[in-house]
């Protein structure tokens, strides 16, 4: 594996390797170990052409804990906001000797464009591209689910996960559908029909328009952020109606199984897709997802960058 562009490129074995590695790395971070020398002398660039403080900080913490040098290249005030092309940015990073680029971009496929062209030679890690994929988020979600519900198994066989909300525009949903099904879990998407993509019936998952009928069946429920601008785009009448049918509130939470967990990739719209009571409940693993994010991103960096470049390069 040289790049991490899409969950679709991963085999179950590769995905499990990343999760297993993250498990061991999480164990080291439970102790007092603050820093590992593994990626000393390697340069990782965080190329964030779209604002995302959470993901950037998580990747930065992961890289620094592995002793890599981190360069942050963010949208505001950078040449990207001044209209520099992706190609020119990539060639700049190449000239700076970047071993890996973690890229967040508003255009679907931006990470793949970076990897497929000969603009730079380093690894490319997709930290969210448009409405396409967000592989590291899916890996940390799978990691969190496995930790809570995996019963010691390395896969997610027999686990049922609901993903609720704006599936149409969600890169988190796309990556999670691919990864969770790859690892053996059953996935049900829940959304109003306007927020499910045409062609969703060909995805490796089920879908429903009715949250209340799905909640009692699942082991984990993942709530997605609903952007305010979707209302002006006619996807649903207003926030109140959305919340009434698709918001996870305390009453709905009571219909969940005893062991079921509540997840959210953040940032949350409290009161819209999730009520404060649910977000702060004992079932909520939302802050733990953030913690796990660092271990999983360390694992991604380790798997992509720690080995010999030649071996790594030849395997994709």
């Amino acid at each position, binding site marked *: 594996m040289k790049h991490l562009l899409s969950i679709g490129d991963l085999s179950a074995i590769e995905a499990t*390797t990343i999760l*297993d*590695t993250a498990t*061991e*790395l999480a*164990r*080291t971070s439970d*102790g*007092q*170990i*603050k*820093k*590992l*020398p*593994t990626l000393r002398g390697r340069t990782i660039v965080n190329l964030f052409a779209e604002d995302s403080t959470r993901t950037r900080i998580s990747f930065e913490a992961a890289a620094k804990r*592995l002793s890599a040098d981190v360069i942050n290249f963010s949208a505001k005030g950078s040449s990207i906001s001044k209209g520099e092309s992706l190609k020119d940015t990539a060639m700049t990073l190449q000239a700076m000797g970047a071993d890996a680029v973690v890229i967040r971009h508003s255009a679907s496929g931006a990470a793949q464009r970076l990897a497929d062209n000969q603009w730079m030679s380093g690894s490319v890690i997709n930290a969210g591209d448009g409405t396409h994929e967000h592989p590291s988020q899916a890996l940390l979600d799978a990691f969190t689910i496995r930790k809570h519900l995996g019963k010691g198994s390395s896969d997610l066989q027999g686990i049922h996960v609901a993903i609720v909300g704006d599936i149409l525009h969600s890169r988190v949903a796309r990556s999670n559908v691919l990864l969770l099904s790859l690892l053996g879990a059953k996935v049900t998407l829940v959304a109003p029909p306007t927020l499910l993509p045409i062609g969703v019936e060909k995805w490796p998952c089920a879908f429903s328009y009715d949250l209340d009928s799905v909640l009692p069946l699942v082991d984990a429920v993942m709530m997605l952020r609903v952007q305010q601008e979707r209302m002006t785009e006619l996807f649903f009448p207003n926030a109140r109606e959305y919340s009434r049918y698709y918001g996870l509130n305390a009453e709905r939470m009571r219909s969940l199984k005893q062991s079921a967990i509540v997840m959210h990739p953040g940032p949350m719209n409290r009161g819209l897709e999730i009520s404060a009571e649910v977000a702060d409940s004992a079932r909520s693993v939302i802050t733990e997802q953030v913690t796990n994010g660092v271990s999983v991103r360390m694992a991604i960096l*380790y*798997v992509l960058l*720690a*080995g*010999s*470049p030649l*071996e*790594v390069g030849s*395997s994709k």
Partner: protein
Amino acid sequence: MSIALSSEDISRALTRISHEILERNHGSRNIVLLGIPTRGAHLAVRIAEIMSKIEGSSIPCGTLDITLHRDDLRLRPPRAIMPTLIPQSGIEDKDVVLVDDVLFSGRTIRSALDALGEVGRPKTVQLAVLVDRGHRELPIKADFVGKNLPSSLEQSIRVSLSEIDGRDEVVIETRVQP
């Protein structure tokens, strides 16, 4: 191929190492054994069991993975990370005995010392190995050795343990030149 240590030889060597560790440290009170995965971890468990029988009390025993501290990571494909399991007692001010199967260049042990430094500050660090085959590249020496096996660089030493390989033996193999 020749058998350097039989099952009985390994068993005797481990018993002797156990006694030597106890003798050097005036008993087991302050000892923590840390095996280096994969085979060193199993050897540490065996030594801990022998020492427990002698002492009549259980000996803290864990594992210390050195993968993340290796200086040759970039020379090979990515390696799987093995568990690091530090016993409850921790290693602060303890006499830590590192256990590995073969001592060769010394680089593994250098990495282990780095890894240990991230965990805590032991009082002393000692090294027990089943086989010392020489060819050191760093100023490192074992405190307890099962058997010295002077070998040429063309030879390789293969340690088999029943926990992983189904039988106990150490063999010397001469690599076939391509």
